[in-house]
């Protein structure tokens, strides 16, 4: 588990928690569920990060034990420790995958929120949203 990734995840979680606590404009009422979802996702990310740290720690420990056992010519024990280390690393990969899924969900949710906040009350095809980020197309008031 590298420190920059941990810091990034914590920063993301903190940003989401801050966003959850900030009052939204009336136009953003419809996206309240997004903020709630983001807060839940932030909590999930914190749990995932904790699990990753635990698996990484155990994997490192098992590798170390395996090396010591190999040095002591205890092949069977070294194999067992390496196997255990592998299982922890596999769990770590699964945690990374889960983290990616959660982060993707957050990104899509924030994009939806941004699109909703940035757009004028009434858009027609081809109009550019005021935030300049993207052209929105459609009709009616969301």
């Amino acid at each position, binding site marked *: 588990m590298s420190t920059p990734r941990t810091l990034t995840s914590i920063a993301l979680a903190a940003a989401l928690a801050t966003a959850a606590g900030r009052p939204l404009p009336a136009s953003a009422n419809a996206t309240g569920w997004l903020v709630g979802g983001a807060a839940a996702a932030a909590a999930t990310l914190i749990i995932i990060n904790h699990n990753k740290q635990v698996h990484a720690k155990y994997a490192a420990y098992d590798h170390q034990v395996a090396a010591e056992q190999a040095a002591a010519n205890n092949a069977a024990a070294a194999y067992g420790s390496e196997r255990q280390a592998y299982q922890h690393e596999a769990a770590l990969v699964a945690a990374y995958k889960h983290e990616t899924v959660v982060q993707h969900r957050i990104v899509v949710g924030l994009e939806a929120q941004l699109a909703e906040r940035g757009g004028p009350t009434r858009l027609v*095809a081809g109009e550019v949203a005021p935030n300049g980020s993207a052209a929105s*197309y459609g009709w*009616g008031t969301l």
Partner: protein
Amino acid sequence: MRTWALFAVFALAVLIAGCSHDGPQVLAESTTRAAYDNDLDGTVAHFDPALKQEVTRATVGQLSDALHALGTMHGFVAVGSTPAQGRYDYQASFDKGRMLVQLRLDSDQEIAAYRVTPLAPQ
């Protein structure tokens, strides 16, 4: 007696089918696919009368061009909803990008607002 029972079941099934509305995702998909095909009638097929007034052939054409710029349209994935407010969001995937498709349904389950916004590349 048995014939009457069968007839009653059939009539009930017809009644339910007649009353049922398409789900929001079906509405979002069919509307977006119609816009993709530059089909004005298909695009507004599920719009409420007020929203239909806003749509022109030119704006449907602009939306169609924007959708075609991303290549072939693939699946729709729900990314959020607030059913109490009739709000549903979907992510439409294309060969070369993604679009956020947002709907607001009125109490008759007709589309009262429809918006498509390009999403940043992944």
